[in-house]
């Protein structure tokens, strides 16, 4: 029978028990996506480890030459480890005190090791998540419930813990005997940490109170909505899901833009980690000055996830340094410096250590260098230019508008310009090229990336980079360990 019907009602009635089955292969697709996600989680871990390994390799490579003082190596661990132990034990005491408040009579544990471990969990949380008092609160619950399970008297447990603390503090005192400053420092740290814990406990208490209050306004709001629209409200649900969305967004590690192109330019400073000369061993102790030059190029990054990116590119690096404390002379090619490949085949300008020409023996077959008078201090300049192809990993530490990252990796260097020249006052001559430079060499790179995002697509970068050359010379006897420092700046375009 025909009757007038509101269109809303018509649809509502018909869709009331509506249920439909999707095609059977949908589950397979979901399963595949879930697996894909799992796989993705595994790959970045390996890449991260690879990055860390690269950084360690670099640290060990340069470590030998930088960290020659053995005393530092011994001192450092003592300072770091012992306060931690003492602090842990003192936290245990605090926790026992807390338990006193929470439980009236019985505080306990099956054995003291167990309470130690559970308490350690609690200790870590406050120091890591000072703002997240809920985390602390839940941990506290764990400790308390553990205690309830196995009943040993409170005094016993306390005694164990106090004894432990004493024992370890004694041990600590013994270690720190020779160094009273160290002991003082430890005590200070203890006090600081204790007050931090107390703060956290207070914060928990406050938060517990605060936690309850927001529910009331939302429920009154709920009632109002029901009155107004005569429909059930889902505000709470929406709030809940939007909170969840935020969490998911944080978990979702897929970057917004995979690719990034960065034209960059950098002042680069070239120098050696030790004394020595790549041109002539007799110049080893001469003063040398690294010079500022320019590197420019383009980098292409591929973002593996929101934190980790891999990058490569091509750049031109110009490096130079000068050696002073020299005298100039002219003489046959035979007496010239072996590692300079002269352009001229006849009499050439020869560079010698200061004073060497005065002392030369006229009977010496090689002693026929005629001193050259110049009106200024002679400088021996070496200019090198490389084409650099880096392969680096960039791990983002701070991923906000202003970002911070660490960079580690390697570069392949192809020798482009190789020039040795002398200048003294108004005299300036290109002698030739260094014969001992490798046409293909490598560097290990480490650096810090600072960036500022103007938009999702555009970012400004500044990257101080340290690059240590692994095999710059064909002759392994050269005792010159060059590195270069560059402050790379550029604009990144993401797509």
């Amino acid at each position, binding site marked *: *029978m025909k009757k*007038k019907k509101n269109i*809303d009602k018509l649809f509502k009635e018909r869709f009331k028990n509506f249920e439909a089955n999707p095609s059977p292969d949908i589950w397979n697709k979901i399963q595949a996506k879930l697996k894909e996600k799992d796989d993705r989680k595994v790959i970045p871990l390996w890449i991260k480890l690879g990055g860390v390994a690269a950084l360690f390799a670099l640290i060990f490579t340069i470590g030998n030459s930088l960290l020659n003082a053995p005393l530092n190596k011994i001192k450092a661990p003592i300072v770091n480890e012992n306060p931690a132990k003492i602090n842990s034990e003192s936290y245990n005491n605090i926790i026992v005190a807390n338990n006193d408040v929470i439980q009236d009579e019985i505080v306990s544990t099956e054995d003291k090791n167990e309470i130690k471990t559970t308490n350690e969990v609690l200790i870590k949380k406050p120091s890591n998540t000072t703002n997240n008092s809920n985390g602390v609160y839940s941990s506290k619950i764990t400790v308390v419930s553990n205690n309830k399970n196995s009943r040993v008297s409170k005094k016993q447990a306390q005694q164990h813990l106090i004894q432990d603390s004493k024992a370890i503090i004694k041990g600590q005192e013994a270690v720190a005997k020779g160094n009273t400053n160290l002991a003082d420092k430890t005590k200070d740290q203890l006090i600081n940490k204790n007050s931090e814990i107390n703060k956290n406990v207070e914060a928990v208490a406050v938060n517990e109170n605060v936690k309850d209050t927001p529910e009331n306004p939302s429920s009154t709001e709920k009632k109002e909505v029901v009155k107004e629209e005569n429909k059930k409200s889902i505000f709470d649900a929406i709030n809940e899901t939007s909170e969840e969305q935020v969490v998911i967004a944080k978990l979702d590690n897929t970057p917004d833009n995979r690719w990034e192109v960065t034209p960059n330019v950098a002042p680069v400073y070239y120098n050696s980690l030790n004394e020595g000369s790549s041109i002539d061993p007799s110049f080893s102790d001469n003063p040398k000055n690294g010079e500022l030059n320019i590197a420019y190029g383009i980098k292409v990054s591929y973002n593996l996830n929101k934190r980790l990116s891999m990058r490569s590119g091509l750049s031109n690096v110009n490096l130079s340094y000068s050696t002073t404390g020299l005298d100039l002379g002219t003489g046959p090619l035979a007496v010239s410096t072996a590692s300079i490949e002269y352009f001229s085949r006849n009499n050439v300008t020869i560079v010698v250590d200061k004073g060497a020409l005065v002392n030369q023996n006229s009977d010496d077959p090689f002693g026929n260098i005629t001193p050259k008078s110049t009106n200024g201090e002679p400088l021996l300049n070496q200019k090198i230019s490389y084409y650099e192809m880096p392969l680096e990993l960039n791990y983002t530490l701070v991923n906000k508008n202003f970002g911070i990252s660490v960079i580690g990796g390697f570069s392949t260097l192809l020798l482009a310009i190789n020039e040795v020249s002398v200048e003294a006052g108004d005299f300036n001559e290109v002698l030739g090229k260094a014969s001992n430079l490798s046409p293909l060499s490598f560097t290990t790179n480490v650096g810090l990336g600072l960036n500022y995002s103007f938009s999702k697509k555009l970012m400004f970068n500044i990257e101080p980079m340290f690059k240590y050359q692994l095999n710059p010379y064909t002759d392994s006897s050269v005792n010159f360990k060059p590195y270069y420092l560059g402050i790379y700046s550029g604009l990144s375009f993401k797509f």
Partner: protein
Amino acid sequence: MTLEELILNCKNQDLKAQEELYKKFSGILFSVCLKYSPNYHEAEDNLQDAFITIFNRIEQFKGKGSFEGWMKRVTVNTVLQKYRKQRVFNLSNEEQLEEEAVIEIEDNAVPLDFLLKIVQELPDRYRLVFTMYVLDDYTHKEISEIVGISVGTSKSNLARARGILKIKVEDYYKINQLK
């Protein structure tokens, strides 16, 4: 396995539990997707996305309220994210809009398949507003907040959706009466 056990196992990323959960709820959630999507194919895509989200977020379900309700909300949110940004151009603002649309019709004269089809054919925002308000009992205030439109726009979108649906149902009814 009880629902609680199933949820717990899903939280532990147990694939078997996930499959069982899918089997148990895919029918209900697919109906949600069908109502909010423009066609069957996209509804299936949305169902996939919704389940992926559910499995990823299941950790956050704390047992407050019904699990089915929670899954429905996640599904609706997933689908909404896809379609709410698409604009609907109102070309006839001057037109007087009816607050309610009434048609004269026999019970069960129009099959559910047809009703679903014409809902799906609505422009994205009309469809979202109509489904949310009429089929899933959201208020205009809630719709305005979720979809990101004003209450007025929500009401006008609903009225337009009703208008379109009314014409289509009437046409269908007339044609089938003549047969």
